[in-house]
Protein backbone atom coordinates (compact mmCIF):
# COMPACT_ATOMS: atom_id res chain seq x y z
CA UNK A 1 0.00 0.00 0.00
CA UNK A 2 1.51 3.34 -1.05
CA UNK A 3 0.61 6.53 0.78
CA UNK A 4 1.51 8.60 -2.28
CA UNK A 5 -1.28 6.97 -4.31
CA UNK A 6 -3.82 7.40 -1.52
CA UNK A 7 -2.94 11.08 -1.18
CA UNK A 8 -3.00 11.53 -4.98
CA UNK A 9 -6.56 10.19 -5.16
CA UNK A 10 -7.57 12.33 -2.19
CA UNK A 11 -5.91 15.46 -3.56
CA UNK A 12 -7.52 15.08 -6.97
CA UNK A 13 -10.91 14.49 -5.34
CA UNK A 14 -10.43 17.55 -3.16
CA UNK A 15 -9.50 19.73 -6.13
CA UNK A 16 -12.74 18.77 -7.83
CA UNK A 17 -14.70 19.17 -4.60
CA UNK A 18 -13.29 22.66 -4.07
CA UNK A 19 -14.96 23.77 -7.28
CA UNK A 20 -18.33 23.07 -5.70
CA UNK A 21 -18.20 25.01 -2.44
CA UNK A 22 -21.94 24.97 -1.78
CA UNK A 23 -21.84 21.21 -1.94
CA UNK A 24 -19.47 21.29 1.04
CA UNK A 25 -21.72 23.65 3.02
CA UNK A 26 -24.84 21.60 2.31
CA UNK A 27 -23.27 18.17 2.90
CA UNK A 28 -20.97 19.19 5.76
CA UNK A 29 -23.22 21.46 7.79
CA UNK A 30 -26.83 21.63 6.67
CA UNK A 31 -27.42 17.95 5.94
CA UNK A 32 -26.30 16.63 9.36
CA UNK A 33 -28.34 19.34 11.09
CA UNK A 34 -31.37 18.40 8.97
CA UNK A 35 -30.89 14.75 9.89
CA UNK A 36 -30.58 15.40 13.63
CA UNK A 37 -33.05 18.20 14.21
CA UNK A 38 -36.15 15.99 14.24
CA UNK A 39 -34.65 13.80 16.93
CA UNK A 40 -33.57 16.90 18.88
CA UNK A 41 -37.20 18.08 18.94
CA UNK A 42 -38.41 14.64 20.07
CA UNK A 43 -35.76 14.23 22.81
CA UNK A 44 -36.12 17.77 24.14
CA UNK A 45 -39.92 17.36 24.26
CA UNK A 46 -39.52 13.98 25.93
CA UNK A 47 -37.19 15.17 28.67
CA UNK A 48 -39.05 18.48 28.95
CA UNK A 49 -42.17 16.45 29.79
CA UNK A 50 -40.40 14.87 32.73
CA UNK A 51 -38.90 11.67 31.35
CA UNK A 52 -35.76 10.61 33.21
CA UNK A 53 -33.85 8.52 30.65
CA UNK A 54 -34.06 6.14 27.68
CA UNK A 55 -31.28 3.61 28.16
CA UNK A 56 -28.04 5.58 28.54
CA UNK A 57 -29.57 8.80 27.18
CA UNK A 58 -30.73 11.35 29.72
CA UNK A 59 -31.43 15.06 30.05
CA UNK A 60 -27.76 15.93 30.56
CA UNK A 61 -26.23 14.02 27.63
CA UNK A 62 -28.81 13.73 24.88
CA UNK A 63 -27.29 16.61 22.93
CA UNK A 64 -23.90 14.81 22.80
CA UNK A 65 -25.70 11.58 21.90
CA UNK A 66 -27.48 13.26 19.00
CA UNK A 67 -24.33 15.00 17.80
CA UNK A 68 -22.58 11.64 17.52
CA UNK A 69 -25.68 10.25 15.81
CA UNK A 70 -25.22 13.00 13.25
CA UNK A 71 -21.57 11.98 12.71
CA UNK A 72 -22.55 8.32 12.24
CA UNK A 73 -25.32 9.32 9.86
CA UNK A 74 -22.92 11.55 7.97
CA UNK A 75 -20.37 8.69 7.69
CA UNK A 76 -23.15 6.38 6.57
CA UNK A 77 -24.13 8.79 3.79
CA UNK A 78 -20.49 9.34 2.79
CA UNK A 79 -19.71 5.64 2.53
CA UNK A 80 -22.99 4.37 1.17
CA UNK A 81 -24.22 7.19 -1.02
CA UNK A 82 -21.51 9.74 -1.79
CA UNK A 83 -18.70 7.31 -2.64
CA UNK A 84 -21.02 5.41 -4.98
CA UNK A 85 -22.16 8.71 -6.49
CA UNK A 86 -18.56 9.74 -7.10
CA UNK A 87 -17.94 6.41 -8.83
CA UNK A 88 -21.04 6.89 -10.96
CA UNK A 89 -20.02 10.45 -11.79
CA UNK A 90 -16.54 9.31 -12.79
CA UNK A 91 -18.07 6.51 -14.82
CA UNK A 92 -19.99 9.03 -16.90
CA UNK A 93 -17.05 11.43 -17.05
CA UNK A 94 -15.16 8.36 -18.33
CA UNK A 95 -12.33 9.06 -15.93
CA UNK A 96 -12.73 6.02 -13.70
CA UNK A 97 -10.85 3.84 -16.21
CA UNK A 98 -7.74 5.92 -15.62
CA UNK A 99 -7.76 4.89 -11.99
CA UNK A 100 -8.69 1.29 -12.69
CA UNK A 101 -5.88 0.69 -15.18
CA UNK A 102 -3.33 2.40 -12.93
CA UNK A 103 -1.19 0.46 -10.44
CA UNK A 104 -3.43 1.69 -7.57
CA UNK A 105 -4.65 -1.21 -5.40
CA UNK A 106 -8.21 -1.63 -4.17
CA UNK A 107 -7.29 -0.61 -0.62
CA UNK A 108 -5.52 2.53 -1.86
CA UNK A 109 -8.58 3.50 -3.89
CA UNK A 110 -10.85 2.90 -0.90
CA UNK A 111 -8.71 4.99 1.44
CA UNK A 112 -8.18 7.75 -1.14
CA UNK A 113 -11.88 8.17 -1.81
CA UNK A 114 -12.65 7.77 1.89
CA UNK A 115 -10.20 10.49 2.82
CA UNK A 116 -11.63 13.06 0.45
CA UNK A 117 -15.25 12.30 1.28
CA UNK A 118 -14.73 12.48 5.05
CA UNK A 119 -13.78 16.15 4.69
CA UNK A 120 -17.48 17.00 4.48
CA UNK A 121 -17.95 15.45 7.91
CA UNK A 122 -15.25 17.54 9.61
CA UNK A 123 -17.57 20.37 10.80
CA UNK A 124 -19.95 17.97 12.53
CA UNK A 125 -17.06 15.94 14.03
CA UNK A 126 -15.45 19.07 15.46
CA UNK A 127 -18.79 20.31 16.81
CA UNK A 128 -19.60 16.95 18.44
CA UNK A 129 -16.18 16.63 20.05
CA UNK A 130 -16.30 20.22 21.32
CA UNK A 131 -19.73 19.67 22.85
CA UNK A 132 -18.52 16.41 24.44
CA UNK A 133 -15.57 18.19 26.03
CA UNK A 134 -17.81 20.94 27.42
CA UNK A 135 -20.84 18.88 28.48
CA UNK A 136 -19.28 15.55 29.57
CA UNK A 137 -15.80 16.91 30.43
CA UNK A 138 -14.22 14.36 28.08
CA UNK A 139 -10.51 13.82 28.77
CA UNK A 140 -7.87 14.06 26.02
CA UNK A 141 -7.25 10.28 26.16
CA UNK A 142 -10.93 9.53 25.69
CA UNK A 143 -11.15 12.17 22.99
CA UNK A 144 -8.36 10.43 21.07
CA UNK A 145 -10.02 7.07 21.66
CA UNK A 146 -13.26 8.44 20.21
CA UNK A 147 -11.42 9.76 17.14
CA UNK A 148 -9.74 6.36 16.63
CA UNK A 149 -13.05 4.54 16.95
CA UNK A 150 -14.68 6.96 14.52
CA UNK A 151 -11.91 6.06 12.07
CA UNK A 152 -12.70 2.35 12.46
CA UNK A 153 -16.42 2.97 11.98
CA UNK A 154 -15.78 4.99 8.84
CA UNK A 155 -13.51 2.28 7.44
CA UNK A 156 -16.16 -0.34 8.16
CA UNK A 157 -18.87 1.68 6.43
CA UNK A 158 -16.55 2.43 3.50
CA UNK A 159 -15.93 -1.30 3.08
CA UNK A 160 -19.67 -2.00 2.92
CA UNK A 161 -20.21 1.01 0.64
CA UNK A 162 -17.47 -0.08 -1.74
CA UNK A 163 -19.13 -3.45 -2.30
CA UNK A 164 -22.14 -1.51 -3.58
CA UNK A 165 -19.96 0.92 -5.54
CA UNK A 166 -18.21 -1.93 -7.37
CA UNK A 167 -21.50 -3.38 -8.55
CA UNK A 168 -22.81 0.05 -9.54
CA UNK A 169 -19.77 0.57 -11.76
CA UNK A 170 -20.84 -2.39 -13.84
CA UNK A 171 -24.60 -2.06 -13.57
CA UNK A 172 -26.54 0.90 -12.21
CA UNK A 173 -29.41 -1.40 -11.33
CA UNK A 174 -27.29 -2.37 -8.36
CA UNK A 175 -27.79 1.09 -6.84
CA UNK A 176 -31.49 0.45 -6.32
CA UNK A 177 -30.96 -3.22 -5.48
CA UNK A 178 -28.68 -2.36 -2.55
CA UNK A 179 -30.72 0.59 -1.27
CA UNK A 180 -33.24 -1.41 0.85
CA UNK A 181 -30.29 -3.17 2.54
CA UNK A 182 -28.89 0.22 3.50
CA UNK A 183 -32.27 1.24 4.97
CA UNK A 184 -32.40 -1.91 7.09
CA UNK A 185 -28.76 -1.45 8.11
CA UNK A 186 -29.47 2.16 9.07
CA UNK A 187 -32.49 1.17 11.18
CA UNK A 188 -30.53 -1.59 12.92
CA UNK A 189 -27.58 0.70 13.63
CA UNK A 190 -29.42 2.80 16.25
CA UNK A 191 -27.64 6.06 15.37
CA UNK A 192 -30.21 8.35 16.98
CA UNK A 193 -31.93 6.08 19.49
CA UNK A 194 -30.70 3.53 22.02
CA UNK A 195 -31.42 -0.17 21.56
CA UNK A 196 -33.75 -0.02 24.56
CA UNK A 197 -36.24 2.00 22.50
CA UNK A 198 -36.54 -0.73 19.85
CA UNK A 199 -38.87 -3.78 20.20
CA UNK A 200 -36.93 -6.72 21.65
CA UNK A 201 -37.48 -9.03 18.68
CA UNK A 202 -35.11 -6.77 16.70
CA UNK A 203 -32.36 -7.02 19.31
CA UNK A 204 -30.60 -10.16 17.95
CA UNK A 205 -30.30 -8.48 14.54
CA UNK A 206 -29.07 -5.24 16.10
CA UNK A 207 -26.52 -7.08 18.22
CA UNK A 208 -25.18 -8.86 15.13
CA UNK A 209 -24.72 -5.55 13.36
CA UNK A 210 -21.10 -4.28 13.64
CA UNK A 211 -22.20 -0.72 12.86
CA UNK A 212 -24.35 -0.76 16.00
CA UNK A 213 -21.38 -1.93 18.05
CA UNK A 214 -19.28 0.88 16.62
CA UNK A 215 -21.88 3.44 17.69
CA UNK A 216 -22.19 1.79 21.10
CA UNK A 217 -18.42 1.79 21.65
CA UNK A 218 -18.07 5.42 20.60
CA UNK A 219 -21.03 6.84 22.52
CA UNK A 220 -20.06 4.87 25.64
CA UNK A 221 -16.67 6.57 25.66
CA UNK A 222 -18.02 9.95 24.53
CA UNK A 223 -20.73 9.97 27.22
CA UNK A 224 -18.17 9.11 29.88
CA UNK A 225 -19.42 5.53 30.42
CA UNK A 226 -17.58 2.20 30.60
CA UNK A 227 -15.37 1.13 27.70
CA UNK A 228 -17.21 -1.55 25.67
CA UNK A 229 -14.26 -3.82 24.89
CA UNK A 230 -16.40 -6.55 23.30
CA UNK A 231 -17.95 -4.06 20.92
CA UNK A 232 -14.56 -2.56 20.09
CA UNK A 233 -13.12 -6.03 19.34
CA UNK A 234 -16.09 -6.95 17.16
CA UNK A 235 -15.83 -3.59 15.37
CA UNK A 236 -12.10 -4.06 14.71
CA UNK A 237 -12.56 -7.54 13.24
CA UNK A 238 -15.52 -6.49 11.07
CA UNK A 239 -13.64 -3.38 9.98
CA UNK A 240 -10.74 -5.46 8.63
CA UNK A 241 -13.08 -8.01 7.00
CA UNK A 242 -15.47 -5.55 5.33
CA UNK A 243 -12.86 -3.03 4.20
CA UNK A 244 -10.83 -5.87 2.64
CA UNK A 245 -13.88 -7.44 0.99
CA UNK A 246 -15.03 -3.99 -0.18
CA UNK A 247 -11.66 -3.12 -1.68
CA UNK A 248 -11.33 -6.50 -3.42
CA UNK A 249 -14.93 -6.58 -4.64
CA UNK A 250 -14.71 -3.09 -6.02
CA UNK A 251 -11.51 -3.92 -7.86
CA UNK A 252 -12.83 -7.16 -9.37
CA UNK A 253 -16.58 -7.11 -9.86
CA UNK A 254 -16.81 -4.65 -12.76
CA UNK A 255 -14.28 -6.55 -14.83
CA UNK A 256 -16.57 -9.46 -15.54
CA UNK A 257 -19.16 -7.52 -17.51
CA UNK A 258 -17.15 -4.36 -18.06
CA UNK A 259 -18.13 -0.83 -17.11
CA UNK A 260 -21.50 -0.51 -18.76
CA UNK A 261 -24.15 2.11 -19.21
CA UNK A 262 -22.45 5.17 -20.70
Amino acid at each position, binding site marked *: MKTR*RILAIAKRGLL*IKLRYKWDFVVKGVLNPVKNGIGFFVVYSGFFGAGAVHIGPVDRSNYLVYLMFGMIFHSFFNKAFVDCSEVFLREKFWQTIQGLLVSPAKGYEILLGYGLVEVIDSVPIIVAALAISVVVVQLSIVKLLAVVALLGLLYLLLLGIGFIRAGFILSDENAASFFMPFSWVLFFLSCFYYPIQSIPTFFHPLILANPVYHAGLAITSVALGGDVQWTSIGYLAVCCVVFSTVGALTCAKVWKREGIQGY
Partner: protein
Amino acid sequence: MNVSPGFWARLTPMIQVTNLKKAFRTKLSGQGTIQSVLFPKYQSFQAVDDVSFGVAQGEILGLLGPNGAGKTTIIKILAGLLQPTSGSALIDGMPAERQRARIGLVLGSTMIYNRITGYENLEYYADLYGVDRVKERIGSLAESLGLTFRMGEYVEHYSTGMKAKLAYARALIADPDVLILDEPTLGLDIKVARDIRKAILNSGKTVLITTHCTEEAQELSDRVIILKNGRISKTMCDPQTAEIESGIINEDA
Protein backbone atom coordinates in the same frame (compact mmCIF):
# COMPACT_ATOMS: atom_id res chain seq x y z
CA MET B 1 11.26 1.25 -39.97
CA ASN B 2 12.86 -0.47 -42.97
CA VAL B 3 12.86 -4.20 -42.24
CA SER B 4 11.88 -7.23 -44.24
CA PRO B 5 8.27 -8.40 -44.27
CA GLY B 6 7.62 -10.84 -41.43
CA PHE B 7 10.62 -9.59 -39.39
CA TRP B 8 8.49 -8.46 -36.46
CA ALA B 9 6.46 -11.64 -36.32
CA ARG B 10 9.63 -13.67 -35.67
CA LEU B 11 10.67 -11.70 -32.58
CA THR B 12 9.67 -12.57 -29.02
CA PRO B 13 6.37 -10.78 -28.50
CA MET B 14 5.94 -8.05 -25.89
CA ILE B 15 2.19 -8.37 -26.30
CA GLN B 16 0.84 -11.87 -26.79
CA VAL B 17 -2.85 -12.50 -27.45
CA THR B 18 -3.80 -16.18 -27.68
CA ASN B 19 -7.17 -17.62 -28.68
CA LEU B 20 -8.89 -14.64 -27.15
CA LYS B 21 -12.67 -14.76 -26.89
CA LYS B 22 -15.09 -12.34 -25.30
CA ALA B 23 -18.84 -12.76 -25.27
CA PHE B 24 -21.24 -10.17 -23.90
CA ARG B 25 -24.79 -10.77 -22.77
CA THR B 26 -26.95 -8.20 -24.48
CA LYS B 27 -30.63 -7.44 -24.09
CA LEU B 28 -32.74 -8.22 -27.13
CA SER B 29 -34.44 -5.11 -28.41
CA GLY B 30 -37.94 -5.11 -26.95
CA GLN B 31 -41.13 -4.05 -28.64
CA GLY B 32 -41.70 -1.34 -26.04
CA THR B 33 -44.25 -3.54 -24.28
CA ILE B 34 -44.45 -3.81 -20.50
CA GLN B 35 -43.74 -7.53 -20.82
CA SER B 36 -40.47 -6.93 -22.67
CA VAL B 37 -39.39 -4.38 -20.06
CA LEU B 38 -40.29 -6.53 -17.05
CA PHE B 39 -39.09 -9.84 -18.51
CA PRO B 40 -36.34 -8.97 -20.97
CA LYS B 41 -34.72 -11.66 -23.09
CA TYR B 42 -30.98 -11.82 -23.49
CA GLN B 43 -28.68 -13.11 -26.15
CA SER B 44 -24.98 -13.75 -26.22
CA PHE B 45 -22.92 -11.56 -28.50
CA GLN B 46 -19.43 -12.67 -29.48
CA ALA B 47 -17.38 -9.46 -29.59
CA VAL B 48 -14.01 -11.19 -29.98
CA ASP B 49 -13.82 -14.66 -31.46
CA ASP B 50 -10.61 -16.67 -31.23
CA VAL B 51 -8.13 -13.89 -31.93
CA SER B 52 -4.40 -14.56 -31.66
CA PHE B 53 -1.51 -12.25 -32.45
CA GLY B 54 1.76 -10.99 -31.02
CA VAL B 55 3.45 -7.61 -30.98
CA ALA B 56 7.24 -7.64 -30.82
CA GLN B 57 9.23 -5.23 -28.71
CA GLY B 58 9.47 -1.89 -30.51
CA GLU B 59 6.92 -2.88 -33.13
CA ILE B 60 3.86 -0.83 -34.02
CA LEU B 61 0.91 -3.09 -34.77
CA GLY B 62 -2.25 -1.65 -36.23
CA LEU B 63 -5.64 -3.21 -35.59
CA LEU B 64 -7.79 -2.09 -38.46
CA GLY B 65 -11.48 -2.72 -38.75
CA PRO B 66 -14.95 -1.25 -38.98
CA ASN B 67 -16.98 -0.16 -35.97
CA GLY B 68 -18.00 -3.19 -33.93
CA ALA B 69 -15.14 -5.37 -35.18
CA GLY B 70 -13.89 -5.97 -31.62
CA LYS B 71 -10.91 -3.60 -31.59
CA THR B 72 -11.83 -1.74 -28.40
CA THR B 73 -12.80 -4.96 -26.62
CA ILE B 74 -9.32 -6.38 -27.31
CA ILE B 75 -7.76 -3.12 -26.08
CA LYS B 76 -9.82 -3.18 -22.89
CA ILE B 77 -8.87 -6.78 -22.18
CA LEU B 78 -5.19 -6.00 -22.75
CA ALA B 79 -5.40 -2.99 -20.46
CA GLY B 80 -7.07 -5.03 -17.73
CA LEU B 81 -10.44 -3.29 -17.98
CA LEU B 82 -12.25 -6.46 -19.06
CA GLN B 83 -11.83 -10.15 -18.38
CA PRO B 84 -11.84 -12.41 -21.43
CA THR B 85 -14.36 -15.23 -21.68
CA SER B 86 -11.45 -17.50 -22.63
CA GLY B 87 -7.93 -17.24 -23.97
CA SER B 88 -5.20 -14.98 -22.72
CA ALA B 89 -3.82 -11.49 -23.29
CA LEU B 90 -0.35 -11.07 -21.87
CA ILE B 91 2.07 -8.16 -21.61
CA ASP B 92 5.66 -9.41 -21.49
CA GLY B 93 4.41 -12.83 -20.42
CA MET B 94 2.15 -11.65 -17.64
CA PRO B 95 -1.49 -10.54 -17.37
CA ALA B 96 -2.07 -6.79 -17.62
CA GLU B 97 -3.05 -6.64 -13.94
CA ARG B 98 0.55 -7.35 -13.00
CA GLN B 99 2.02 -5.03 -15.62
CA ARG B 100 -0.13 -1.95 -15.10
CA ALA B 101 2.80 0.40 -14.54
CA ARG B 102 4.29 -0.65 -17.88
CA ILE B 103 1.18 0.10 -19.95
CA GLY B 104 0.21 3.51 -21.32
CA LEU B 105 -3.41 3.52 -22.45
CA VAL B 106 -5.34 5.97 -24.59
CA LEU B 107 -9.08 5.47 -24.99
CA GLY B 108 -10.00 8.53 -27.04
CA SER B 109 -9.97 11.57 -24.76
CA THR B 110 -11.23 9.68 -21.74
CA MET B 111 -9.47 9.38 -18.38
CA ILE B 112 -8.89 13.14 -18.28
CA TYR B 113 -10.66 15.24 -15.63
CA ASN B 114 -12.25 18.33 -17.17
CA ARG B 115 -12.73 20.05 -13.82
CA ILE B 116 -9.06 20.29 -12.92
CA THR B 117 -6.15 21.72 -14.88
CA GLY B 118 -4.00 19.88 -17.40
CA TYR B 119 -1.07 20.04 -14.99
CA GLU B 120 -3.14 18.66 -12.10
CA ASN B 121 -4.30 15.82 -14.33
CA LEU B 122 -0.77 14.80 -15.22
CA GLU B 123 0.45 15.30 -11.65
CA TYR B 124 -2.33 13.02 -10.39
CA TYR B 125 -1.40 10.23 -12.79
CA ALA B 126 2.31 10.76 -12.12
CA ASP B 127 1.64 10.17 -8.42
CA LEU B 128 -0.47 7.09 -9.15
CA TYR B 129 2.33 5.61 -11.25
CA GLY B 130 5.09 6.64 -8.83
CA VAL B 131 6.89 8.90 -11.30
CA ASP B 132 10.02 10.64 -10.00
CA ARG B 133 10.77 14.31 -10.71
CA VAL B 134 7.16 15.00 -11.60
CA LYS B 135 7.59 18.66 -12.57
CA GLU B 136 10.35 17.94 -15.07
CA ARG B 137 8.47 14.99 -16.55
CA ILE B 138 5.27 16.99 -17.02
CA GLY B 139 7.24 19.93 -18.39
CA SER B 140 9.03 17.85 -21.02
CA LEU B 141 5.84 16.04 -22.09
CA ALA B 142 3.91 19.31 -22.32
CA GLU B 143 6.66 20.87 -24.39
CA SER B 144 6.95 17.94 -26.77
CA LEU B 145 3.20 18.03 -27.41
CA GLY B 146 2.85 21.81 -27.54
CA LEU B 147 0.77 22.06 -24.38
CA THR B 148 3.10 24.13 -22.19
CA PHE B 149 1.13 27.37 -22.17
CA ARG B 150 -2.23 25.75 -21.44
CA MET B 151 -1.24 23.40 -18.60
CA GLY B 152 -2.54 25.77 -15.93
CA GLU B 153 -6.02 25.98 -17.47
CA TYR B 154 -9.01 23.84 -16.63
CA VAL B 155 -9.30 21.05 -19.19
CA GLU B 156 -12.96 21.97 -19.77
CA HIS B 157 -11.61 24.97 -21.70
CA TYR B 158 -9.41 22.82 -23.94
CA SER B 159 -10.27 22.09 -27.57
CA THR B 160 -10.83 18.47 -28.64
CA GLY B 161 -7.32 18.36 -30.08
CA MET B 162 -5.73 19.64 -26.88
CA LYS B 163 -7.64 17.05 -24.86
CA ALA B 164 -6.38 14.34 -27.22
CA LYS B 165 -2.81 15.54 -26.73
CA LEU B 166 -3.29 15.61 -22.97
CA ALA B 167 -4.70 12.07 -23.09
CA TYR B 168 -1.60 11.01 -24.99
CA ALA B 169 0.66 12.79 -22.47
CA ARG B 170 -1.25 10.99 -19.68
CA ALA B 171 -0.46 7.65 -21.33
CA LEU B 172 3.23 8.55 -21.54
CA ILE B 173 3.57 10.01 -18.04
CA ALA B 174 5.19 6.91 -16.52
CA ASP B 175 7.36 6.27 -19.60
CA PRO B 176 5.63 2.92 -20.23
CA ASP B 177 7.14 0.10 -22.29
CA VAL B 178 3.86 -0.58 -24.07
CA LEU B 179 1.44 1.91 -25.58
CA ILE B 180 -2.11 0.77 -26.23
CA LEU B 181 -3.97 3.36 -28.26
CA ASP B 182 -7.63 3.13 -29.17
CA GLU B 183 -8.33 5.41 -32.11
CA PRO B 184 -6.13 8.21 -30.73
CA THR B 185 -6.78 10.57 -33.65
CA LEU B 186 -10.52 10.05 -33.96
CA GLY B 187 -12.32 13.33 -34.64
CA LEU B 188 -9.16 15.44 -34.72
CA ASP B 189 -8.19 17.93 -37.40
CA ILE B 190 -5.37 17.08 -39.82
CA LYS B 191 -2.67 19.03 -37.97
CA VAL B 192 -3.35 17.62 -34.49
CA ALA B 193 -3.73 14.11 -35.92
CA ARG B 194 -0.39 14.54 -37.68
CA ASP B 195 1.26 15.76 -34.44
CA ILE B 196 0.00 12.75 -32.55
CA ARG B 197 1.01 10.31 -35.30
CA LYS B 198 4.47 11.86 -35.32
CA ALA B 199 4.71 11.46 -31.55
CA ILE B 200 3.66 7.80 -31.83
CA LEU B 201 6.24 7.10 -34.55
CA ASN B 202 8.98 8.79 -32.50
CA SER B 203 8.04 7.09 -29.23
CA GLY B 204 10.26 4.03 -29.82
CA LYS B 205 7.82 1.93 -27.79
CA THR B 206 5.86 -1.23 -28.43
CA VAL B 207 2.57 0.10 -29.73
CA LEU B 208 -0.79 -1.49 -30.38
CA ILE B 209 -3.03 0.98 -32.14
CA THR B 210 -6.60 0.56 -33.33
CA THR B 211 -8.06 2.61 -36.11
CA HIS B 212 -10.63 2.42 -38.85
CA CYS B 213 -8.60 4.80 -40.97
CA THR B 214 -6.68 2.83 -43.61
CA GLU B 215 -4.14 5.59 -44.27
CA GLU B 216 -3.35 5.94 -40.57
CA ALA B 217 -2.79 2.21 -40.21
CA GLN B 218 -0.50 2.21 -43.24
CA GLU B 219 1.44 5.27 -42.12
CA LEU B 220 2.03 4.15 -38.54
CA SER B 221 2.15 0.39 -38.49
CA ASP B 222 4.90 -2.14 -39.07
CA ARG B 223 2.15 -4.74 -39.42
CA VAL B 224 -1.60 -4.45 -39.78
CA ILE B 225 -4.22 -6.92 -38.65
CA ILE B 226 -7.65 -6.51 -40.15
CA LEU B 227 -10.52 -7.47 -37.89
CA LYS B 228 -14.06 -8.24 -38.99
CA ASN B 229 -16.88 -9.43 -36.77
CA GLY B 230 -14.49 -10.18 -33.93
CA ARG B 231 -12.18 -12.35 -36.04
CA ILE B 232 -8.89 -11.73 -37.83
CA SER B 233 -9.62 -11.59 -41.52
CA LYS B 234 -6.16 -10.68 -42.74
CA THR B 235 -2.61 -9.94 -41.51
CA MET B 236 -0.40 -7.64 -43.55
CA CYS B 237 3.32 -7.68 -42.78
CA ASP B 238 4.23 -4.80 -45.07
CA PRO B 239 1.29 -2.42 -44.97
CA GLN B 240 3.10 0.58 -46.46
CA THR B 241 3.47 -1.13 -49.81
CA ALA B 242 0.42 -3.36 -49.67
CA GLU B 243 -2.82 -2.21 -51.14
CA ILE B 244 -5.58 -2.46 -48.61
CA GLU B 245 -8.72 -3.39 -50.47
CA SER B 246 -11.01 -0.50 -51.02
CA GLY B 247 -13.94 -0.63 -48.65
CA ILE B 248 -12.47 -3.47 -46.59
CA ILE B 249 -13.15 -1.69 -43.36
CA ASN B 250 -16.41 -0.11 -44.28
CA GLU B 251 -18.42 -2.94 -45.71
CA ASP B 252 -19.86 -3.87 -42.32
CA ALA B 253 -20.03 -0.38 -40.90
